[in-house]
């Protein structure tokens, strides 16, 4: 169940991306996977909300399940010569993991819809319908523009939780100096 603590803090998109990336590494993600997931979470937080909340949910998964879940978006592809495809997931996937890739696909003329309405990053998705649509044109993303200009309002509680995990990415100065 999604929730939003009332206390909030303004963060810059790059801060969010950096912190999620570091926190991913702390969870054991390889650097490339961490980078991709950080972009996913940041995009979702800006455009749909609940990106960090969803990430905190994902962070509780065991590493094997986590690695499998993180590949979900890489299945969102319209095979060459195909007009449409249904991509089905065996277990519901949080929309936070799919949102950015789906929006990117629009830039290449691929429209999408999910089996159920997606309202935030924590909306569960079981299947995605992709179809070729050459009428699509890249749209300007006002939410991103606003977030870059004035900051992105996120839950203070969630931000603190994220930072606490991300801080473990840093290495002790004493250890480095001693080496």
């Amino acid at each position, binding site marked *: 169940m999604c929730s939003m603590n009332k206390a909030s803090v303004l963060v*810059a998109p790059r801060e969010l991306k950096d912190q999620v990336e570091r926190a991913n590494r702390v969870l054991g993600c390889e650097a490339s996977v961490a980078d991709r997931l950080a972009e996913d979470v940041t995009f979702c937080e800006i455009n749909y909300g609940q990106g960090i909340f969803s990430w905190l949910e994902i962070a509780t998964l065991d590493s094997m399940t986590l690695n499998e879940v993180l590949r979900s978006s890489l299945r969102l*592809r319209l095979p*060459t010569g195909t007009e449409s495809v249904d991509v089905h997931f065996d277990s519901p996937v949080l929309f936070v993991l799919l949102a950015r890739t789906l929006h*990117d696909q629009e830039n290449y003329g691929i429209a999408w819809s999910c089996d159920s309405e997606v309202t935030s990053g924590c909306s569960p998705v079981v299947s995605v319908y992709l179809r070729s649509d050459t009428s699509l044109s890249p749209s300007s993303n006002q939410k991103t523009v606003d977030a870059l200009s*004035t900051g992105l309002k996120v839950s203070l509680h969630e931000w603190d939780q994220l930072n606490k995990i991300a801080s473990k990415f840093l*290495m002790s100065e004493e*250890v480095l100096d001693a080496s």
Partner: protein
Amino acid sequence: MTISEEISELSTLLNDPSTVLRPPEIVMKPTSLGAVRMTRFSFSRSLIRRAFMNQWEIKRLVVNFDEFGRGHIIYRILAEEKLFHFVAFTSTIDEALHTDRVIADVWDVTAALVEGEIDNEFMQFLSDEVPKQELSRLDSRVLVLTRGNRSVRFYDYLVERLANGKQPESKQLGDAGYIMRSTAFYGNGKFGMRSFLGFEDRHPLSAPYRAQFLAAWLFREVGYESVEHCAKAKNPDAAHLNDEWSCFFGLGNATGLGLVPWAMKHPGELNSWIAIRELALSNVRSLKGSTSNKQILEEWFDKSYQYFSSLGGDDRWPWMGPDSLAKATLLIHDIFRSLSENDFPFNDLYLWAEKQDVEITELVVSLLLELDNTDDEVIDSLLVVSNEKKDNLNVIVGALKKIIKEKYSWLDELDLDQSEAKHYWWVMSDNAEEPRRAERSVIDPAHREIPIDISLRINQLIGDLYATDEKTSVSEFLHSFPEHGIAVKRLLNDSGPYSEPRENVCDFKHLPLNLQRFQLAMYGMDNFAPQSTDWLRVTLFQGAPRVSEIGSKDSDKWILPRQPEGLT
């Protein structure tokens, strides 16, 4: 001669077959990058040209210092109808607490550049947060956060001299040319500040690093204000720095390893910075020699000689020092005289220079670029790198192989399969998040490495790509090999010919100073003084006009200032 003003796409300009460009295999060599010097495109210079051109109004609004220079000072900046303030909080800390590294937690000066009006509430917010630096929580009104210290060697000396009614003596200043030394200029979303891409179009600070360099220019002002204030506190009849000295001092800066991760993570920015320089060089090389442009270059040779010879000093490993550079400038000047009647003397000078030591080559390049007149608006627009990602995962593995074959063959020369290639890994310290490098054999990275090992990653990618069917989509490939995501993204984004430093930053032989100097020169810093393989001191804005001089003098020939009182 200028870069075309009609074409705004850098890639279009680079692909113009009539433009003769230096190849990336020369320009992107570590030693070439490590020999680069400031040019007219460097950010400190373009800032000052813009401020003068558009008649920015910069006024000291408040100065509230005690006899030791402790308190605060506020500058008000009206730039092209946008209002900014630079607010500096000043203190005096024990000399023992002065450090060049980013990791200190107290400073003589902490400051911020903010946009908009400052009321009492905002001022209180700034006075609470700015001194905390990395521990502060700011918002989008704040554009830049900085800090620094008084020069231990010179601050008190200058105060004493002025208090005694005297000017400084060159021999006491040695090779330093600053009153205060900064250690960081944070911006672009750090600690909640406004993101760089959050500046609207045609905002006066929307060019890369313009906000940081406005802050640096004002930080330098604080040094002057502070010294003269403290001198006057000692003696109401204290002297002011005279005309010779009042522009001589710049702002010192110490730079560590943080520039290396930045360079490796921003291929698009590297490409645009270098491409602009190379396009301008190409333009200058195509010029016929006229009396006026030959005279301009001769004046720059003189200026360069005066600067290096008045600075004086031995070589600064791994680079030439002021004495050697002064001799080199004389040699360059002689060679140019012998070529000056040729049809294309600037091209001929360059062709001679490229056969010399790389430092001479790049010194010649920086001087030749003074002949370029490309409009600053064009340069500013070419500098901005699109945030648009081009990593289309629908492309096939065959396309990636083609990119590697065409653009990454230089990896073969790096011995990436040798153990020395993975000698170092890059990490962030828990002290101020300072980037460091650690030896892999001594400390296990354990998921802490900063992924700037681009050469190694692409090398590893090649192995798996060649074991995969050409028609496999990239998304399918990454489903099987998610660890190649960063390398694949690098290839698909294709940031341009000058985007990749041709080295492996994890290699045992990697010398961070090269990438550091390259970036510092792009920023507009000079007087490179390496302190080890990993960090160096530099000076910025030395010789630059004071903010009070906007509108009163030439705004672009201030670099390479001759030390007052002549040769030391």
